[in-house]
């Protein structure tokens, strides 16, 4: 045993973080030991507070300390458009653009039988209820073009289309500032499929 027990435990905990290997975990643990007593206290408080207060918004399932969340209660936002995403991280990505001013709905995952994720494990029922009760006229699906993402979009479109709500999926294609020459065939053919008249 190279590390004394409390230190070893801290390293183990850090190592459970995504993308953190043994070496990074060790560095982080040593950093914690170097912290002043107040800073270490602030860290534990931040963890406890975040864990206690951040919950799913019961309307859109985004993460927030309040329910309904900041986005859902913002009356300046467009109430007629809802953007469906898989993960709270996607909401943050969209918010960063400052372009989109509508509502969100976080599915909290994608349909994936292998991971035990059926439609009932996602917030699909709640999305359908929103579509029924709110004045939503348009649904935008911002979901990754993976096997599971495509399956989820297909499933949702089967349910939403009959309701006569405008339904679209975000375009896929070349990243900005990239070079056509280096794009892979899959991306190129997708972007050809989604081409627009000018």
């Amino acid at each position: 045993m190279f590390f004394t027990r409390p230190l070893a435990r801290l390293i183990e905990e850090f190592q459970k973080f995504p993308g953190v290997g043994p070496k990074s975990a060790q560095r982080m643990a040593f950093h914690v030991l170097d912290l002043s007593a107040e800073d270490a206290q602030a860290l534990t408080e931040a963890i406890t507070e975040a864990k206690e207060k951040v919950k799913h918004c019961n309307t859109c399932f985004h993460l927030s300390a309040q329910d309904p969340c900041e986005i859902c209660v913002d009356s300046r936002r467009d109430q007629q458009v809802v953007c469906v995403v898989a993960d709270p991280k996607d909401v943050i990505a969209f918010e960063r653009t400052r372009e989109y001013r509508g509502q969100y709905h976080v599915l909290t995952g994608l349909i994936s039988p292998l991971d035990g994720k059926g439609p009932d494990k996602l917030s699909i029922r709640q999305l359908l209820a929103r579509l029924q009760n709110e004045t939503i006229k348009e649904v935008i699906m911002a979901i990754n073009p993976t096997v599971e993402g495509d399956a989820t979009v297909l499933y949702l479109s089967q349910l939403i289309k009959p309701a006569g709500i405008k339904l679209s999926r975000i375009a896929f294609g070349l990243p900005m500032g990239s070079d056509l020459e280096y794009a892979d065939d899959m991306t190129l053919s997708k972007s050809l499929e989604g081409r627009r008249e000018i």
Partner: protein
Amino acid sequence: MKVTQLKLEDFRNYKNLVVDFADGKNIIIGDNAQGKSNLLEAIELCASGKSSRAEQDFDFIRWGSNACKLLLSFDASGAEETISIALAQQNEPNKLLSTRSGRLQKVIKVNGVKQTSVRGLLGRIPFVSFTSNDLGLLRAGPKFRREWIDGIAVRLKPSHHDVLSNYAKTVAQRNRLLKLFAERGRMNVSDQDELLVWDKQLTRFAIAVIKMRLKVLAELLPLAQEIQSHLSRADELLCIDYALRTGRTYSEDFREQEESDQGEEQALNSSFADLHSMPDLELAKILARLLKQLRGEELRRKQSLVGPHRDDLQVRLNGASAIAFASQGQQRSIVLALKMAELKQLSETTGQTPILLLDDVLAELDPARQALLLSAIGQPMQTIITTTHLSGFDPKWLEGARIMTVNNGQIVSKEETSAP
């Protein structure tokens, strides 16, 4: 295209090895189980990310070690490039390193740049591998033929790898769902909606996989037919049928269908050319029909039974099944013709001369077929051959070849025969 050097560390039975290859013929001699095939496997692994011999990645790591490294240098039209693959057992605190299981970390680099997936190395080294196992292509299970045709497809078009992996993922997801529903006993409306989604996904990728196989066959078959007729010096017509569903040709399925609704789609018959020219929508209809027909069976067996993972290729000679009616010698000729066609197709499509890897296969061919294969190997094509002895080779053909002897994971001798 030439491979110039292969470096191995703890790969299979090699602790440490550096081999330099000649531009033309390379012959690796050794008794059985000395590591000849491992060298070809290493090249194939670097060129395709796959090995037809290994069941799991752990098999690559030398016994007594917990990591291995491969570095292949090659000459891509004048510029030296490299592909490296490193496998290392992950540290898991509660596990003894001597157990050959658990997670392996795989790092693939092309020219020193780390790749996010196997996809990054595909298509860089065009190669055709011909092993003694391939001689059983016609007799082996359908999986062997599916992997063969899909392997060609990926070498011709590396992005097809994504289609295949999406298809495999979809089948895995759908199988899990079938299992879930089968165990639950009955399906409600929402379950049916969910299965419908996976039916659609399956159909979409299935069409892409099937169409690609048909495209490969459409190019390969005429080339193979020409070589075959040359080999047999007779009027033998080589044909390949594409069977949607193992063990049944498309025509058999269709005939059944015809009996049930007479008159519809009269023009269709069993040749794969019809499937090849069939619009995607028609193919989707056929798959939908099969899915509907087999739904109950799928739930019973908890498995997806429709799609290219159940399809097969059926080789026919003069209209008769080659497995049932062709002699051993004829079957070998057919495989040889297919392999040589593969070589031609790859060089025509990529515009590069592929590398030919011959693993223990020459000894299995009679002198006439051997001569034909060897004569096809012209000087511009780099060839790496493994064999147990040189006696079968024409001394004239051996001129200018680099001959290396492998003994127990080491290259013990190397000689260059004088050029003609």
